[in-house]
């Protein structure tokens, strides 16, 4: 259920990110522009170093040391100029309206805090006053992400859970406030293939149920085909191609996209 909206949910204009290092300044993102509408599932795809993760961090306004946004960069989200917000206003948007799912659930979770409390904390940070209610909502969210016996699991610590289950906890945290946009940075790259399949199914179900927009950052064209309706191909900080997935996979306009697709290993049985 995607209602047609007149204005895009997200507008990125002339976004540039540079990193200052020992060897001078490197331009990771070089003046890119794209839109996303509410409920859209879009992939930002490319090889390592193409700038896709820098875009994700810029959208969340979490910048690495030495990273700088170009002067003419603009990011408009739901009518708000994100780059004009102070850090306090941005903190309110982060987690509540735009949430992020990271690649390494083990690194993104607090090792000494019960997973239920980590999910509940998201609600407490965004206005929920009652710890009791936040906990109950956390358990319900963990249950929704397919964690069996969520009331008991909520009391466990990250090391007591498998990699796939930890990723479900991160998804529960991201979706707790029903954000309009979820940025998923290589959400299944660290997982075994059978677990990856389950997590992709879960993300697809949750996307359809909540109508959230998903920006998937990945190098894996198989994952793009599973989850997204549109793909933006990046190389060297620039966008080469931005089109519906059927066009990207079956009639790519850019020779580099075609070359990448030819190199993707695929099972003979799937050809």
């Amino acid at each position: 259920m995607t209602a047609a909206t007149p204005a895009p949910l997200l507008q990125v204009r002339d976004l540039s990110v540079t990193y200052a290092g020992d060897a001078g300044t490197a331009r990771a993102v070089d003046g890119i522009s794209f839109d996303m509408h509410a409920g859209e599932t879009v992939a930002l795809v490319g090889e390592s170093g193409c700038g896709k993760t820098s875009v994700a961090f810029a959208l969340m306004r979490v910048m690495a040391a030495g990273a700088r946004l170009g002067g003419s960069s603009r990011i408009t989200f739901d009518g708000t100029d994100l780059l004009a917000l102070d850090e306090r206003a941005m903190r309110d948007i982060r987690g509540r309206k735009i949430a992020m799912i990271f690649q390494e659930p083990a690194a993104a979770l607090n090792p000494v805090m019960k997973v239920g409390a980590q999910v509940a904390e998201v609600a407490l940070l965004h206005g929920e006053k009652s710890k009791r209610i936040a906990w109950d909502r956390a358990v319900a969210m963990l249950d929704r992400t397919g964690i069996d016996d969520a009331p008991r699991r909520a009391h466990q610590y990250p090391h007591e859970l498998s990699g796939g289950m930890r990723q479900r906890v991160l998804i529960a945290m991201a979706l707790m406030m029903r954000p309009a946009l979820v940025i998923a940075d290589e959400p299944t790259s660290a997982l075994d293939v059978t677990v990856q399949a389950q997590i992709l199914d879960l993300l697809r179900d949750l996307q359809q149920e909540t109508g959230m927009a998903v920006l998937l950052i990945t190098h894996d064209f198989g994952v793009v085909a599973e989850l997204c309706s549109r793909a933006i191909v990046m190389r060297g900080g620039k966008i080469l191609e931005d089109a519906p997935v059927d066009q990207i996979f079956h009639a790519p306009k850019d020779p580099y996209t075609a070359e990448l697709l030819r190199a993707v290993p695929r099972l003979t049985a799937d050809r």
Partner: protein
Amino acid sequence: MTDRQVQSTNDQRPITLVSVNHLTHQFPARRSLFGTPHTAAPAVNDVTFDIARGETLALVGESGSGKTTTGRAILRLIEPTSGRVTFDSTDVLALDREPLRKLRRRMQIVFQDPHTSLDPRMRIGRTVREGIEAHQLAEGAEADARVARALEEVGLHAGDATKLPHEFSGGQRQRIAIARALAVEPEFVVLDEAVSALDVLVQAQVLALLMQLQRDRGLTYLFIAHNLAVVEQIATRVAVMYFGRIVELADAATLYASPQHDYTRALLSAVPVPDPRVKKKRIVWDGK
């Protein structure tokens, strides 16, 4: 299909190069706070297979399946709890230090991560040269020539010998690791997720290089990997591991066309299809 043919050997050497029998490796049992031992899950449990000269046997499985432990036990990088490994009719597990060291020239390994497997402060020429000198294959100018040859064979330049690892990309570093392994002229190479960390374009190039080197030198590979689509490109035969055991071992063509074990079917059905028009039916295996 020609890549997959086992090279015919017209000499008198036996067809089997590596033989693994009832290999079992249990990690030492950990004790709980009160001294009661936890039952250690066997990392490898009663694994048996042969590898023929010139073929590529792939060992596939998910994390914790024991595929990496198996590869390392064959080279005695870890000492297995029990079982038998023979290399060209030599009992590997019974060897003393010096004969084992000599045998290691003939069996090499390439690891997954090209960023951590090379010494960052050592010029790559020295990295490649170390094995040549340790095994007294050559010295002086002759060793230099061998280093140059090894680098050129993997698509690098002889002049790269004076550079440091950070001057190379991930794919080039993996080529250096391959050059280091091949410089001592082994017959058998364990490739432990050797292309898994590479971007797809580079991955395709390094796979092609590995197959070319195998054809040129008649190498035998144990190809350890989790990506079934990559394995299909290089494997002669495939062994599927699950929780320390081999659940299925077959010719690659047979295994991919008609997998017999439910776990193999589940694994194959989970591989994402890089085509939005294809929706594959997933098979879930409950592990029984």
